């Protein structure tokens, strides 16, 4: 009986691992798929904010000053919300850890997070990221991701 249980468990384990490996391509970061060094890609990110007046301005260094409902000014910092080192540096070409798709997903999710965690800023109508991705040395592609508030 134990032999059968061992075999069933081993088959289930290998099948589960096989499914996770086979479907890793459907996850942007290939998680659970053991795809080591899958890419050599870079990413350069620029942050923009759309103000109440409708102008689109680039945010240098991920920090800007905005007013709250009472008119008090606040210094808003992307880095105080996103602590991951490779998700809070702007205007610098960085290695895209776990690939271009993984970093695009993570930056987009971080944008969503920041846009909804700055109640002290009532002036910014939208935040936008411009992602310059170079996958495996191929020509750079630009992607814009915007989150309206």
């Amino acid at each position, binding site marked *: 009986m134990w*032999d059968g249980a061992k075999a069933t468990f081993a088959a289930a384990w*290998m099948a589960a*691992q096989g499914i996770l490996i086979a479907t890793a391509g459907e996850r942007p970061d290939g*998680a659970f798929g*053991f795809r080591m*060094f899958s*890419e*050599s890609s870079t990413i350069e990110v620029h942050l923009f904010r759309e103000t109440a007046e409708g102008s689109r301005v680039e945010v240098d260094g991920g920090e800007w000053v905005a007013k709250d409902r009472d008119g008090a000014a606040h210094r808003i910092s992307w880095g105080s919300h996103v*602590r991951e080192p490779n998700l809070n540096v702007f205007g610098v070409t960085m290695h895209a850890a776990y690939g271009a798709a993984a970093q695009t997903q993570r930056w987009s999710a971080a944008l969503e997070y920041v846009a909804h965690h700055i109640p002290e800023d009532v002036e910014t109508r939208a935040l936008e990221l411009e992602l310059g991705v170079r996958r495996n*040395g191929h020509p750079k592609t630009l992607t814009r991701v915007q989150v309206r508030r």
Partner: protein
Amino acid sequence: MRDLFHRWATEVGDAFVLGVVRSIVGGFLFLQALSAAGELARVGYFGDHFHLPFIPERFVPSHDAYVVLIAVRILLAVMVTVGHRARYALLGSAALGVYTLLCNRVEFHHNRYSLYCYAFLLALGPSDRAIAITRDESPSDGAPMWAQRLAQAQVALVYLASGGSKLLDPDWRDGVVIADRFARYAYQALGAGVPQSVVDAFSTPAATSALAKAAIATELFLVVGLFDKRTRVFALWWGTMFHLTIEATSKVEIFTWLTLTMYALFATPDVRARKLFFDPSRARGRYAARLVRLFDWLARFEVKAWKPDDLKQGHSIVIVRRDGSRATGIRALAMCARTLPVLFPLWAPLAFIASFTKGGDASARV
């Protein structure tokens, strides 16, 4: 097939190496948990900042629960290392480790997931029968090997997934990925003293294409080479060199050392099946015996000073292999390199040189 399955399910061996591997894996679990604690102290609770869970946010632990979780992970890792209720601790470590990864995919790394997979599989085997302060009193020999074999299969699965995905990716196959890495990081090699001409030679399209194919071939070879008795030692050596090269050129956290630790599971599950006789009247013999005792972490040798008998033929050491054949001089040195983990990188060149001496070193068992 039925016979193969029956042998797999009923195979027994000595669990000593399993105990060694468990203890080292405990060290890795400890380092991972300690690193998480350090990050908590340095950066703060991850849930207070941007994070990206695989699981619904309501299942992510609160700050206080996370602090307790890390403390428990540290405690369990210590228990795994010293061998106190080690199998339960391995199981707990694996479960909490995977749970932690599921709480924030930004913190996901292949080596961490691999570690928890191996911890889980080691928990299924009698890894508490050796190197343990409170151990299973069953004798370490005659231990069931099925979980160890499953852990070996997991090692192969990692290579299959990694090599297979590279093979299916035209950029990888053609060397484009490696070429871009070289182009971006060549300055580091130059800074480390690698001559410009060498960097240039390795950066040509032909060289990067060849290196890519060699890397893919290596990973796919290891999938099968580790399991065939005729190729196992070479596969272990080639894999060791492959991982040491990666370690020297990339940041992969614990992945190199974790994989090399798991390689120990491919050693034949027996203890002190070889004998090393040394001449206690010679300094070289005493020194060699001391070194072997110090570095024989997998208990491959029974080390003895020889009594005057027919072995004593003017040699400082004589190794008696499993099959009873004897090795001296460079062949004995090659045998030591083959069985002592710290000397293992030297095995192939020593064995190559030894092959030109009488008899060489032909046995395929580790």
